[in-house]
C-alpha cells in the first residue's frame, strides 16, 4: 500500500476543501452583490465561499471597545481579473498587536500591503472600498501616498537591508526627510537599534555594511529601520519565517516590548507565535476574514469551526 491510498479516505471525510475551491473563487467580478449568509454559523461557510457566495466575517465584540488605528472598510482588491480580497471589514486596535493568520495564498500579504498602499506599484490592480489611518482616508482622492507611507513602517518576510552601512540603514527614513543633524541621526539610530534589541551586537560596527549581519540580525535591523520612522502602525509580514527559533524568540520578545507604544499588524504562519505575541487574531481564508477576535478566544473558543480546524492544525 502506498501513502497515496492511505491518505484518500481522510480527505473524503472533510467538507469540500481548498483545491476544489480555487477555480471558482476567482469567478466573482467587481460589483457582485453580497449574498446574505444565514446565522448561526455552520460548517458550510467554506462551501458557500467555494460557491462564490459572500460570507460576512465574525468579529468578536471585544474589538468594539478598542480604539482603532487602522480601519478597513468594505475593502475589495483585484489583481487584474482575479479577486484577492473580498469585502474586508476590520478594526486594527491602537497600541495592540494584531495577527493575521490563514492558509497560504489567502491574501494576508495583500491585505497588509494594502494598508500602506505598496500594492499601488503593481500593474492592473483594482481597489474598491477604503481604509482609514487614524481617521484619515488612505485610498481617498487627494491622499499623498508618500506622506501616508511615512506614517507607517513595514517589515518584510525576507530581511531586506539596503546595501549600505548599518547606521545609514537605520536612519534611512530620516535621510529621505532631509535630516542632516548628526546628533539627531545618531540618537535615533541608537534608540531604534536598542528598540530592536540589536544595539549591543552592532554598536561597534555601525559603519559596516548592513549585509554583513546574520539573517536574524538583518531582520532586527529592518525592524529598527521601521521604528526609526516612528510609525503610527507597524506592518510585519512573516518577519520570522526565515529565522531560527532563537532569532524568532528575540523578535517575538521585541514585538511584545513594542506593543503598547506601537500598533502592530503582523502576518504569521506560526500559530504559537500568534498565540504568544498577539492580542488579537484574524483568521483569513480565500480573501475573506472569517473570524476576528481576541487571540485567546480565537485559539481557545472560536466561534467558527473552520477557525478551530485551522488553529488546531486539522485544516487542509
Amino acid at each position, binding site marked *: 500500500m*502506498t*501513502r*497515496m*491510498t492511505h491518505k484518500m479516505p481522510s480527505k473524503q471525510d472533510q467538507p469540500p476543501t481548498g483545491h476544489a475551491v480555487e477555480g471558482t473563487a476567482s469567478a466573482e467580478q467587481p460589483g457582485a452583490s453580497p449574498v446574505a449568509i444565514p446565522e448561526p454559523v455552520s460548517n458550510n461557510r467554506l462551501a458557500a465561499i467555494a460557491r462564490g457566495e459572500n460570507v460576512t466575517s465574525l468579529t468578536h465584540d471585544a474589538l468594539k471597545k478598542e480604539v482603532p488605528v487602522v480601519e478597513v472598510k468594505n475593502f475589495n482588491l483585484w489583481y487584474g481579473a482575479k479577486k484577492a480580497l473580498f469585502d474586508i471589514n476590520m478594526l486594527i486596535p491602537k497600541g495592540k498587536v494584531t495577527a493575521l493568520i490563514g492558509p497560504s495564498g489567502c491574501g494576508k500579504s495583500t491585505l497588509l500591503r494594502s494598508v*500602506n498602499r*505598496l500594492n499601488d*506599484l503593481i*500593474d492592473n490592480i483594482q481597489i474598491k472600498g477604503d481604509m482609514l489611518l487614524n481617521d484619515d482616508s488612505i485610498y481617498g*482622492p*487627494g491622499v*499623498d501616498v*508618500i*506622506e501616508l*507611507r*511615512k*506614517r*507607517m*513602517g*513595514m517589515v*518584510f518576510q*525576507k530581511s*531586506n537591508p*539596503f*546595501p*549600505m552601512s548599518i547606521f545609514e540603514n537605520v536612519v*534611512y*527614513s530620516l*535621510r*529621505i*526627510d*532631509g535630516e*542632516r543633524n548628526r546628533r539627531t541621526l545618531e540618537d535615533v539610530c541608537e534608540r531604534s537599534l536598542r528598540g530592536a534589541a540589536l544595539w549591543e551586537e552592532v554598536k561597534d560596527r555601525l559603519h559596516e*555594511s548592513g*549585509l554583513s549581519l546574520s539573517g536574524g540580525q538583518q531582520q532586527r535591523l*529592518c525592524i529598527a*529601520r*521601521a521604528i526609526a*520612522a516612528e510609525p503610527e502602525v507597524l*506592518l510585519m509580514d512573516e518577519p520570522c519565517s526565515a529565522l531560527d527559533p532563537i532569532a524568532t524568540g528575540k523578535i517575538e520578545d521585541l514585538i511584545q516590548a513594542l506593543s503598547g507604544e506601537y500598533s502592530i499588524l503582523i502576518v504569521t504562519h506560526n500559530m504559537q507565535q500568534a498565540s504568544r505575541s498577539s492580542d488579537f487574531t484574524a483568521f483569513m481564508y480565500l480573501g475573506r476574514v472569517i473570524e476576528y477576535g481576541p487571540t485567546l478566544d480565537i485559539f481557545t473558543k472560536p466561534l467558527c469551526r473552520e477557525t478551530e480546524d485551522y488553529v488546531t492544525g486539522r485544516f487542509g
Partner: protein
Amino acid sequence: MNKDQTSFTGRTRERKTKRSVHFFDLVARTTITIGGLMTVVAVFTVCIFLVWVVLPLFTSASASAPQRSAVALAGERPLFIGSDEYRRLGWALYPDSTLNVFRLDNGKTIVNRKLFESPKMTAAVYSTQFADAAFGFEDGSVRLGRISFGTSFIESADAEPGLRELKTGEVVEHNGGLVEKVPSGQLRELALSVKLEEAVPAIEGTPVARIDAARGSNNMVFAVLGQDGQLVIENVRARRNIMTGKTTFTKQTARLPFDKSTHRLPMFLRLAGLGDNVFVAWEDGTLVRYDTRNLAAPVVAEEMDLVPEPGGSLTALEFLIGKATLVSGDSVGNVRAWFRVKPEPVATLDDGKQVIATRDLPASVASRLVHPSAQTLPQHLRDRAKELAFMPSNDGSMLVPAHLIHTGKAGVVALASSARTRLLAASYADGSASLHQVTSEKHLATVSSDNAAPFTSIAITPKDDGLVAVTAASAYSWAVDVGYPETTTLSLLGKVWYEGYEKPEHIWQSVGGTDDFEPKLGLVPLIFGTLKATIYSLMFGVPIALLAAIYTSEFLSPRARGQIKPAIEMMASLPSVVLGFIAALVIAPAVEGVVPALLCALICVPLVFLIGAYVWQLLPYKIALGYGHARFPLMVLAFPLGLWLSYIVGPWVEHWFFAGNIKLWLNWAPSGTPADLDSAYHSAVGGWMLLFVPLSAALVGFAIMQFLNPMIRPLASTWDRKRAALMDVVKFLAAAAATLVLALFFSAALSAIGFDARGSFIDTYVQRNAMVVGLIMGFAIIPIVYTISDDALNSVPRHLRSASLGAGATQWQTTIRIIVPTAMSGLFSAVMIGIGRAVGETMIVLMAAGNTAVLEWNIFSGFRTLSANIAVELPEAVKNSTHFRTLFLAALVLFAMTFVLNTIAEMVRLRFRKRAFQL
C-alpha cells in the same frame, strides 16, 4: 498487483541516466569548451598577428661587413661618388673632371675618362635625387648634365658569343660596363651614361667658382658664384610650342647682393628646391640666406651662424631630398638639419626687419638664436627671450636647427643624402661613418674604415640598401638593411619636428603628393581623435541612455516599458554606415545652419521639460492622477516643444552673444589692433556661456538643495499641495534666472580679463565636426547602454524597492539612494561597453568626422580616429612598408585600448557584483 507497481504519478522513473543523455552532455561540454578555447585562441591570434606585423618597426637596422677594394686616383678627394642600384659599380667624379667607374667587388677601374678638357671645369654639383649634374667652367659658362646608370636586359640567345656561356651570377666587364647573368636567365648590362647639354654663358669674364641648380617642372634654376664674387641666379624656362614642336627658352637673371670685399669666397653655394632661396656659407659657419622668390628684387633674408660652437668650422653642407632641409656638418663633429619655418612675427625693428620668434626650442638652441639686434626689442618681448628665440628676418622666415642628428668628437668630413628618403650618411675624421634618418633622428648604422683613414666621400646607394664610401686609398661598400627608419617609439608617440613646421608637433599625414614627401606618422592625433569622438558621443549618449533606462525601469509601468524597450533596442539595428551617411549628408549640412539654435536646445529642451513637470504639479490632484497615463506622451511632447523654442531663441542668442554670426565669431582671432579689440567679435561671453550655463545650473541647484530647501521645509510642511506646487514653480523660475545671471557674470568676468574660450573647446566651425559625430554616435551607443542599464536596474531586487518605498521614500529618492547605487556595476559596465563601442566605431566617424587629423578639443572641428584611419589608408598602403606596419600598429593600439577598457569594465563589474550577490 497492478496498483502496487504504479507509483504516485503513475509511471516508474528510470533511475539510470540514459546513454544518449551522457553522450549529449559530453558533446555539449566539448563543443562549449572548444568554442571557448577557439575564441581565446582567435583573440590571441589576432593579437599575435598584429604584433608580428608591427614588431619590425622597432627592430634596428643592420649593416653587412664591408666589401673593400683599392681605387684608382688614390689620394685625391672626389667631388661626388655614387653607385648603381644593384651595387655592382661605383663612380667618382674628381675635381679635374675625371670620371672613374669602378667595380665595387674588386675595385677594378672600368672607365676612367676626363669629361671636360677645355674649357676647364671649375665647379660642379650633383643631385642624387634626380641624377642631375651642373658644371661650371673657367670661361664663366655652365653646362647641365646627367650622370646615371643605364640598365638593359638581353636574352642570352641574342648575346654575343663570349657572353652566352656566362653562369648565373657571374659578372664580366663588357664595353665599359658590366654584364651579369641574372637568375631569370637574361643578361643584364649595366653602364654609366653621361649626357651633357650645351654650354650656356652664365657670368662674364670670370671662372665659375661655385654652382648649384634646381629643377622645376618646366624650368631650371641656376645659382652661380664667380671667382670675382659675382653671384647670379638664373631661371631658365622652357616652353614647348605644341604646333611646331619647337622649344623656346626664356631666361631671367638676377644678380644677388654680394660684397666680396668684406667676405672671402664662400665654401658652399646651395639653391633650395624651388629656386626660392639661395644659401651661401663660409668655412666659419656664417650663412647668408637670400630670398629669391621675386627675381626682380632678391634680398638678403637673414644671416646666421651654422656652427655656434667656438672654434668650430663648417665642413659639409648638403640638402636632403626635396632640397628644403639643409644638413650641416662641422669640425667639432655635429650634424644638424636646418629648415625654414615661418612663425608669427612678434615685432618690427627700426631697420624694418621683422623680429620673429619661435617657441619650444631646446634652451641650448634658443639662447644661441637670440640675435644681437633683439636687444632693441620692446621690453615685454625681451622678457620672453628665455622662452622664445628671436631672429630678425627680412622675409618672415627663419632657419632653425630642427634636428641634431649626430654629435661626436671627430669632425664631419662628408655628407650624403638619399635619393628617395630622408636618410643621411655622414663620414667623420676618425674613419667612421654613420647612417641616420633625419626626421626621427634614428641612428641606423655605423661603419668604419680599416685603418681609421677618413672617408673623403660617401654615398647612399639608390635603393637605400647600401653605403658606398672612399678613403684616400680604397673604396668600400656595405649592404645595409635600414629596416623602418621613419619610426621610433618617440616619433610615433612624441612630438616630431617636421620640415617647415614652426615647432615639433604631433602629426599624422602618411601620404603626400610628391616623391620627397616627409611621412608624418605620429599616432597621437589618431588616438586623440578616437578619444575625442568617444568623449563627445558619450557626453551626448550616456546621459540620455542612463536617464531613459532609469525612467523606463523605475517610473514607467511595466506594460509601457515592454513596448518602449524593444523600440529603443531596434535603434541598435540601424547599420552604422547608414547613420554615418545620414550624419554626413543630412545632419551635418542641416546643423550648420542652426548652430545657435542647437546650442540653445541643450538648455531649452531640459527647461521646457522641467517647466512642464512643475506645471503638472500645479494641476489639481484629481486631474493629475486621472490623467497619469498622459504623462509620458506629454513628456515626449516636451522635446519638440523645446526644439521649437530653441529655434525661436537661436537667432536672438546669435545676435546677442555671437555678434550676429556664430561662424564668423568662432573664426575670429584677435590680432591686437585697437580696431580688432573694439570689434563685436571681440567679446568672448558667448563661448563661456556654453560652459557656464550648465555649471551655474549645477551650482544653483546645489545651493538650493543645501541651503534654501532646509530653510523652506518647516514652512512648506504647513502648506497645502497647491501652495507648495506654486512655491516650487516660483523657486524653479528664480533658480533658472539665477543660473542665467550667474553664468552671464562668470562669462563676462572671464571675457573682461581677456580669457577666451575660442581656441579651446570651441573654435573655427567646419561642417563635419565632433558635435555632429557626437550626436550621431551618441545615438548609436544609446541602445546598448540603455539596454544593459535597464537590465541592471531591473535586476535590483524588488524587495529593496518595496523597503524604500515602504519607508516613505519617493520614487526618485528610491532610485537615487537605493536602485542606482545597487545597480552601479551594471550601469558602469553599460557605460564601458558604450565606450568600447564608440572607440571602435568606424563608419560613422569615417563619414561624418571630416577625417582631419587635428589635435584640438574644438567641438566644431573634425578629427580622425584610429579606426577610420585604418579603414581609409590600409587599402592604399604598400604592403610591408613603414606606413602599412604603422597602420597595423594603430590597430594594435586600438585593440589595446578596447582591451584595457573592457578589462577595467569587467574588473569593476565583478567587484560591484560581489556586493550585489549578498542581497
